[in-house]
């Protein structure tokens, strides 16, 4: 039977065996960790990391440049941007630059915003007023209000567009959305210059515009050496004229000045055969086609412009937008050129609508022309302030449309989807931590082995 001392002696070797076993296990684990870190390090180094979606929250307050700058420092090919608001013109320019630099840009929005677009512009006409245009994919009733209170409710019909004109105060709200009306230029700079030959169209167009309250200058050619002028400046002058209306037979010297006039922000209306004038190819909204005669007697019908001769616009230029069609042919189209706008009106001899139309024809003719020209008056920001785009001397009047044009509309993703998007395992392995882990583990493993040997 072992003595107490034997028993004690017998106990001590047992304890030493357990400690050595424990040290051996720990050493083995550390060694394994070290080897694993080495293997992961090798895998991380020799396996290309997949694109890691880089998240950025872009607002319209101008933080996009800083956010994108930080992301681009990481040299990622793909950048995901979550829009939590409508990006400003500057933010869109930054995003365009990122895309142009070769990066894949993916836009997302956390929530589906209501498909509602509002444009509010002060109308340039003697009676004043603000034109509010609402476009919605949802045919619902919308409440219109201004700073003074509720005004009206409008129901968006199946066409999706409703226009309301009237005197409004301050910001205009439609539903939950609000816009600040853009103001037309002052009367001093909203003059219209009519260029053409002495003929009924120029005569009645000038009369209609003056009756609608537009200040009109005119240069009407009578012979190669005689031009009748009205107003102080018979040639396009951006400091005096907002819009030039070009009719057939205009003096060629005045036509030569039109490209610069438009690019510097002026509005140009090309009427009928005048769209064929030389030197205007870069300005036209589309190619003028073969002239079609109007339908006899239609000028007195409910569709009076069917009775007018038409120079159809056959092929729209880049950026051209059809505004009105007749029998499937584009009759009125518009496009932006530089900082200005060009409106191409295919109808010729519209004066006969005024003379030969029904009882409402004189007013309708006057109103139609005035409305067309209202869309060309350069706008300026009212007191609320609207950002001016850096590339154009014009207002950022349609930021959502510009976003869709330049970058495409964002994909709707819920917040959960966006935030839970996992980073890949490979991309999450940092080589520095792996190396440090491997070294520490192997050194610890080696130290334990040495300790066991000494013991």
């Amino acid at each position, binding site marked *: 039977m072992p003595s107490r001392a034997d028993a004690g002696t017998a106990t001590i070797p047992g304890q030493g065996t357990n400690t050595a076993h424990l040290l051996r296990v720990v050493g083995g684990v550390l060694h394994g960790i070290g080897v694993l870190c080495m293997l992961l390090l090798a895998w991380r180094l020799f396996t290309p990391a997949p694109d890691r979606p880089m998240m950025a929250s872009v607002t319209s307050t101008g933080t996009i440049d800083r956010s994108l700058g930080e992301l681009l420092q990481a040299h990622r090919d793909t950048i995901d941007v979550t829009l939590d608001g409508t990006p400003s013109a500057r933010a869109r320019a930054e995003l365009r630059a990122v895309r142009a630099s070769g990066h894949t840009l993916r836009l997302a929005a956390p929530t589906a915003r209501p498909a509602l677009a509002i444009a509010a512009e002060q109308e340039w006409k003697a009676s004043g007023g603000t034109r509010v245009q609402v476009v919605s994919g949802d045919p619902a009733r919308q409440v219109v209000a201004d700073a003074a209170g509720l005004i009206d409710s409008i129901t968006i019909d199946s066409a999706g567009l409703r226009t309301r004109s009237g005197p409004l105060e301050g910001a205009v709200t439609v539903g939950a959305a609000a816009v600040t009306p853009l103001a037309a230029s002052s009367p001093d700079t909203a003059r219209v210059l009519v260029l053409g*030959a*002495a*003929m*009924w*169209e*120029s*005569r*009645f167009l000038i*009369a209609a515009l003056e*009756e609608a309250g537009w200040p009109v200058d*005119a240069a*009407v*050619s*009578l*012979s*190669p050496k*005689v031009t*009748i002028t009205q107003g102080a400046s018979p040639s396009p002058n951006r400091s005096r004229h907002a819009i030039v209306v070009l009719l057939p*037979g205009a003096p060629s010297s005045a036509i030569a000045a039109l490209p610069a006039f438009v690019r510097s922000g002026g509005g140009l209306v090309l009427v009928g055969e005048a769209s064929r004038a030389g030197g205007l190819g870069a300005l036209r909204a589309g190619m003028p086609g073969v002239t079609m005669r109007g339908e006899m007697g239609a000028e007195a019908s409910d569709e009076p412009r069917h009775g007018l*001769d038409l120079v159809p616009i056959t092929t729209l230029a880049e950026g051209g937008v059809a505004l009105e069609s007749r029998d499937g042919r584009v009759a009125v189209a518009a496009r932006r050129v530089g900082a200005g706008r060009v409106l191409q009106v295919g109808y*010729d*001899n519209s*004066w*006969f609508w*005024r*003379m*030969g139309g029904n009882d409402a*024809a*004189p007013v309708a003719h006057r109103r139609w022309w005035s409305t067309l020209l209202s869309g060309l008056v350069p706008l300026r920001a009212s007191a609320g302030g609207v950002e001016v785009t850096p590339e154009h001397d014009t207002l950022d009047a349609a930021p959502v449309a510009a976003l869709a044009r330049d970058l495409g509309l964002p994909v709707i993703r819920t917040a959960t989807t966006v935030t839970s998007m996992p980073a890949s395992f490979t991309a999450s392995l940092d080589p520095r931590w792996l190396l440090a882990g491997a070294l520490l583990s192997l050194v610890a493993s080696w130290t334990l082995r040495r300790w066991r040997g000494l013991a």
Partner: protein
Amino acid sequence: MKFTFATVQYESGDWDSAPLLAANVIDAVARYTSIDVAPAGAIVPLSSEALLRYPLAFLTGHLPVRFTVAERAMLRKYCERGGLLFVDDHNHDVDGVFHKTCTEELSQTLGPLANIPNTHALYKAFFTFRDGPPTTSHELNGWGDNLVHDHLQGIERNGRLAVIYSSKDYSSEWSFHPENKKFLSVDNTRFGVNLVVYALTR
């Protein structure tokens, strides 16, 4: 679309008393300007909607003028919409039947006639007539009312002349064969150019 000189045909009187006038005015317009002018004039009934296709129309005669209801309505519509009617008394006689009846009809239909000042844009529209309407040989010869009329008369609509009324007898003055114009030392149809240019530009 070309400019077409239109002569108004009305039910009463002799609307066609100056058949060569249109050709002379057309000749003058083509001679002095580059206005795209139709080589032949048009004859348009005063009561017809077709009148609205000719925003400048010429009316003359010797005989009493009485407009029908349809003619009055169309004349009113024509002037309201921007048409310009040039009326000339072929008798050159303020006591004559044409003058009395025609001015009466015009006044009843459109309002009273008033003198057009001799500084009016009409007299500077193309050629300059510093003394107002040019005289005619019939005035200077003492025919008709034996008067040299200092002014034309007019009726305005929307700040523009809608009717120009003349007692000077341009119907006789301008009614000659166009071939004979070369014998004139000064073309007496130049004021016709002013009428056309004024109508087309004001």
